[in-house]
């Protein structure tokens, strides 16, 4: 039985994770380019978070995706599906070749996460604002069953504008869901422009604190800070935890970084070439 459970990271593990993140970025860009559509910026900004969780924190078994003692990850910002798929493939849930079928008719890799077709996808998402509620339900179910499972949920910053997020935030606090840890991929941009201009979500840290959460604010691309925040979250009892991760939309490729344009656009062949020249060889 192949379960993944890494202890906390010594230096060489950081290098390994950095390399995994680089390879995941390459897979994301290749699959998006092949698909011809999809969400580049928000997939790239989430890579370190996903890498940290799947390669150095979560307990799971890719051969038994429904192993009842597993930790669970919910991608509430469902449009970052390419990042999740690249991570799941590398973690062993399905062959990496399948990544090239993204968004094709009949593919197991739907445009937004589909729990019915993709091994490793816990719930179907895509319509923003719904993942935290589902994470609460899963965390409470695990608690009722006496499981030690932790539930992680990754939200977007534009997604903070959805009212249902705050309904769910109240629930997490009211029911003291301490086996839940959320992330906000705070890359500062949404579709029509910077979040500050479209609908300012600040003061975000204060909002989550006011809703009864334990909050940390980190650099979302620093493994050191990610693990430090995750460790802290594990010590917090009777309160849910959230990690507000400041990130760069399009992180890793100079032509995509911080550009509103690349929210929902896939790299062209030219753009892919430039990206790969910066990221290096894949595997």
């Amino acid at each position: 039985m192949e379960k993944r459970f890494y202890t906390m990271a010594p230096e060489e593990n950081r290098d390994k994770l950095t390399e995994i993140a680089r390879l995941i970025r390459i897979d994301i860009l290749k699959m998006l380019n092949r698909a011809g559509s999809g969400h580049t910026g928000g997939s790239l900004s989430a890579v370190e978070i996903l890498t940290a969780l799947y390669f150095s924190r979560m307990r799971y078994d890719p051969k038994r995706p429904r192993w009842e003692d597993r930790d669970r990850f919910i991608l509430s910002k469902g449009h970052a599906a390419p990042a999740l798929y690249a991570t799941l493939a590398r973690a062993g849930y399905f062959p990496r070749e399948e990544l090239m079928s993204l968004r094709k008719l009949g593919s197991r890799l739907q445009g937004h996460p589909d729990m019915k077709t993709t091994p490793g996808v816990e719930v179907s998402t895509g319509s923003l604002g719904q993942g935290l509620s589902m994470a609460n339900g899963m965390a409470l179910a695990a608690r009722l069953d006496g499981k030690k499972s932790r539930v992680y949920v990754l939200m977007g910053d534009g997604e903070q504008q959805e009212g249902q997020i705050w309904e769910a935030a109240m629930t997490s606090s009211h029911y003291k869901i301490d086996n839940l840890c959320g992330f906000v991929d705070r890359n500062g941009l949404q579709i029509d422009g910077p979040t500050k201009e479209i609908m300012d979500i600040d003061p975000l840290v204060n909002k989550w604190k006011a809703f009864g959460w334990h909050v940390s604010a980190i650099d979302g691309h620093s493994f050191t800070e990610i693990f430090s925040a995750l460790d802290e979250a594990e010590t917090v009892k009777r309160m849910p935890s959230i990690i507000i991760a400041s990130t760069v939309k399009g992180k890793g490729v100079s032509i995509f970084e911080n550009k509103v344009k690349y929210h929902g656009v896939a790299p062209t062949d030219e753009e892919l070439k430039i990206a790969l020249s910066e990221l290096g060889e894949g595997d």
Partner: protein
Amino acid sequence: MRRHSLAEIEFKKYLGTRDVYGDTLALLGEKYHDIVVLDADLSGSTKTSVFAKKFPSRFFNMGVSEQDLMGTAAGFAAGGKIPFASTFAIFATGKAWEQIRQSIAYPSLNVKIVATHGGITVGEDGGSHQTTEDISLMRILPTMTVVVPADGIETRKALEAIVLHKGPVYMRLSRLKFPVIFDDSYAFRIGKGSIVREGRDVTVFACGYMLAPALRAREMLRENGVQAQVVNISTIKPIDEDLILSCAKVTQSIVTAEEHSIIGGLGSAVAEVISEKHPVPLRRIGVRDRFGTSGSAEELVQYFGLTPEAIAKAALEVIHMKQNTSGSESR
């Protein structure tokens, strides 16, 4: 055609479908340990409070938060539980429609949405609280099963059935007490309607509140020498096509009756089957594309024409249409 024994239709006994829900859910909770129940600050009205009292650790009040209610229920289902999610029908199917669609129906999660206060008999609270749309809103969703029980006995049996059914279910209950029509020998099955009274001149397909008025209409029609067949269609989706067609082939004229808009509910569902497979004259009794309004339930059913008189009148009309288009088809 299915046969079963019936209680005498003198409407002596009344049962609240939501009261039956509350009691039955608490009993089911004993038998099925994976049942959890969620509500949105209406558990006193929906009667999930009965389960809550008995199994407090398995009851989750979400407060006035219907979208979160449905999303959390979805999470419970994904976590292996059998969640029952309750609130008023307008809020369940209206405010949380998209959450039901995306988080429950699309992934086909095993959530049982049991909503009370369907229809205009909600009464004095008025139009904001009276849903004439809920059956339509749920019926349009792939993977959703839609059940509208006609009395307390059927409610209990339907609940027992939906616990075992794998997949999303919407069940619509009432604020009111309904006359008891079925007895304990009634065998409810999801997807199967039942002939409550035989007749060869016209078929009245009814659901929920309107089954009792349909039976009264039958008595009125009998005085006119018309034998009306009364059929309970309690599963709106998947609808019992075979039964609908076998009735239509005999009576060749149909009236549908529901406490719902004539758009998109039982009437539309029956019309869809009939128009494609056995076109016969059909009239829909229901709310005619209007919002509700404040009033007593008794006044409102008169006001919106959800009465035995309206059903009987429509029956005579379709019989007349049938006779006017007579040729080799009519009887």
